[in-house]
């Protein structure tokens, strides 16, 4: 692998990107998805995250353009140069440009995403049969409104699944009309237009007015390419017209007749001999995902590799099942390192991966007896069967963890396990919550024991319960604690001395001076967003937990350790 001179790279890991415009070749959602997947290629192997912005300046500005598109490095029409990107830095640095004279696809020909219809946006299935005929392109057959459609399964007659294909009669993209459809005819500079046009533009993009009169309303949008749109010739973007007449013969499909290079072409009007309007028929195109993944490699600081199978090799080749080459991985690790800490995993939203060893099951403790049968509650609490063989080590995410009577309690779906400080860290359980705290729902968001009163508080959704021994108060609304009605749940609680507690939800926490008075004094914003799920104090340290992981904060309020709940706390 190679990096740019000076090892240019981003000085932060939370990279932003913005898609400035779209290609007419693919639906916007397909393009969004291709770019997102291309970024994921790199975020999967690094601590980097990629967040899409919809306005303002992003680190990586992504755009389509043709020929001279304003950066001093013009594209060269169809084929040849496909795209380029600049190494990390300010301004144009980090930006990625894609040549819109290419036919952008998913690499295997037109991927036609449908809209409306009854197929929920599925891709067209080519070929499909309809009325005893096979179709390899969208068709207007069977419709009087001239809207192109396709079946999204092989047999329309059997499955009746269909959607409409991209058409200016359905929508436009970019422009200033919020995607409204073209209005035909429309007036532009006093002339009347019956279809999309490139008039008035130097970049060759086809556009239309979305009102009857562009001169008056100035409302426009760009026309999406139909799946039969031609490339190049003198009718770029216009659909093939079948049948068409060429040298007196009738053609129902693309032909290479008349050309010495064997390339397939079609006429875009019914008669080439009289109109001479034509273009090349669509080929497999270039995979926007693969090219974008390569360009984003540049935008992150990787230069071209001379390993033929590496993504950063300068020449394009289509691969069906893409995965990064070792050379690419080593290159990006050289710049940004690899995923090492649970923090990275959490930041990137990967919560369920990783080894899940099945350890030995601890013996159930004496009091109360672990449940082996389904219990019935006398309250509204839902009963829950307890599987005695279930090990807490098999659980990736506990509902809450808290300290009660000096013992750590791990709660999950109506059961809990107890790790006693008296029995040298031995784990007991599972026990049924419904036996000991029958009023409490199966799933609790947070629980804690008030050190001053020994009352145990359970929170579930917008309600809470307070247990004093066997007697229970509640359910009561968390609004009674002074929390706003918009708070949907209490995600965590942290004891700060006797009678004082911090209640957490999302990025906010509330400082409770005394639970007896139920007065909420201050609302703060935590620095880490959506980080806290449950908090527990263990010998002077506070453990902020989310999913499988914890952050340990010492008495100096410094996070001095990040680790796994199951391995470090449960000793799995």
């Amino acid at each position, binding site marked *: 692998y190679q990096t740019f001179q000076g090892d240019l790279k981003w000085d932060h890991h939370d990279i932003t990107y913005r898609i400035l415009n779209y290609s007419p070749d693919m639906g916007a959602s397909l393009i969004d998805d291709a770019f997102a997947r291309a970024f994921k290629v790199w975020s999967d192997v690094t601590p980097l995250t990629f967040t899409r912005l919809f306005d303002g300046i992003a680190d990586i500005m992504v755009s389509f353009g043709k020929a001279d598109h304003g950066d001093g490095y013009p594209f060269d029409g169809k084929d040849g140069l*496909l795209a380029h990107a600049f190494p990390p830095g300010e301004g144009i640095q980090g930006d990625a440009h894609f040549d819109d004279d290419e036919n952008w696809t998913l690499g295997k020909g037109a991927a036609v995403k449908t809209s409306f219809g009854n197929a929920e946006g599925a891709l067209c299935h080519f070929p499909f049969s309809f009325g005893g005929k096979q179709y390899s392109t969208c068709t207007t057959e069977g419709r009087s409104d001239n809207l192109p459609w396709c079946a999204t399964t092989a047999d329309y007659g059997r499955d009746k699944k269909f959607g409409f294909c991209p058409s200016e009669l359905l929508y436009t993209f970019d422009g200033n009309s919020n995607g409204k459809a073209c209005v035909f005819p429309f007036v532009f500079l006093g002339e009347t237009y019956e279809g999309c046009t490139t008039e008035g533009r130097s970049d060759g993009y086809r556009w239309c007015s979305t009102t009857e009169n562009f001169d008056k309303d100035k409302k426009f949008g760009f026309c999406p390419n139909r799946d039969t749109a031609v490339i*190049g010739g003198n009718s770029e973007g216009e659909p093939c017209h079948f049948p068409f007449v060429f040298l007196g013969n009738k053609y129902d499909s693309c032909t290479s*007749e008349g050309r010495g290079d064997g390339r397939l072409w079609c006429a875009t009007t019914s008669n080439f001999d009289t109109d001479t309007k034509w273009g090349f028929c669509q080929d497999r195109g270039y995979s926007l995902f693969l090219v974008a993944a390569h360009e984003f490699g540049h935008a992150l600081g990787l230069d*071209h590799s001379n390993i033929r199978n590496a993504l950063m090799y300068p020449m394009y080749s289509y691969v069906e099942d893409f995965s990064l080459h070792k050379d690419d991985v080593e290159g990006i690790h050289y710049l940004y390192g690899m995923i090492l800490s649970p923090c990275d995993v959490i930041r990137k939203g990967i919560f369920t991966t990783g080894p899940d060893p099945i350890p030995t099951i601890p013996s159930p403790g004496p009091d109360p007896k672990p449940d082996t049968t389904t219990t019935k509650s006398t309250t509204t609490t839902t009963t829950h069967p307890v599987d005695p063989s279930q090990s807490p080590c098999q659980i990736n995410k506990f509902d809450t963890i808290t300290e009660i009577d000096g013992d750590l309690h791990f709660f999950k779906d109506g059961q809990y396990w107890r790790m006693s400080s008296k029995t040298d860290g031995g784990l007991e359980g599972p026990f049924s919550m419904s036996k000991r705290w029958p009023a409490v729902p199966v799933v609790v968001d947070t629980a804690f024991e008030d050190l001053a009163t020994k009352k145990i508080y359970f929170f579930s959704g917008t309600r809470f319960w307070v247990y004093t021994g066997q007697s229970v108060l509640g359910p009561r609304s968390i609004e009674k604690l002074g929390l706003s009605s918009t708070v949907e749940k209490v995600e965590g609680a942290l004891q700060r001395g006797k009678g004082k507690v911090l209640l957490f939800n999302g990025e906010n926490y509330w400082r409770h001076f005394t639970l007896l008075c139920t007065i909420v004094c201050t609302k703060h914003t935590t620095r880490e967003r959506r980080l806290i799920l449950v908090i527990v104090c263990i010998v002077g340290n506070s453990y902020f937990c989310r999913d499988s992981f914890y952050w340990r904060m010492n008495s100096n309020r410094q996070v001095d350790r990040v680790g796994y709940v199951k391995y470090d706390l449960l000793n799995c």
Partner: protein
Amino acid sequence: WCVPLKKSVSVTFPGDVLKNMTDTELANSYLQRFGYMDVQHRSGFQSMASTSKALMRMQRQMGLEETGTLDKSTVAAMKAPRCGVPDVRS
């Protein structure tokens, strides 16, 4: 042989972009564009030795046989679709 032979005709298509570049012109353009060779001097002089050296460098980068000559596979590589970022930075 009973099927009548369709007479193949070659037609000039309006708007057809014909890239009438010789292989040597293509190579010079490619080597300069992607950083293997400096842009031509004002005199237009480019020595054979420097072209050969640039070709070898390009062939090494592309994983081709390093012949230093404009062979078939090198021309094919130069015509293949690719990224516009230069391979060699000045």
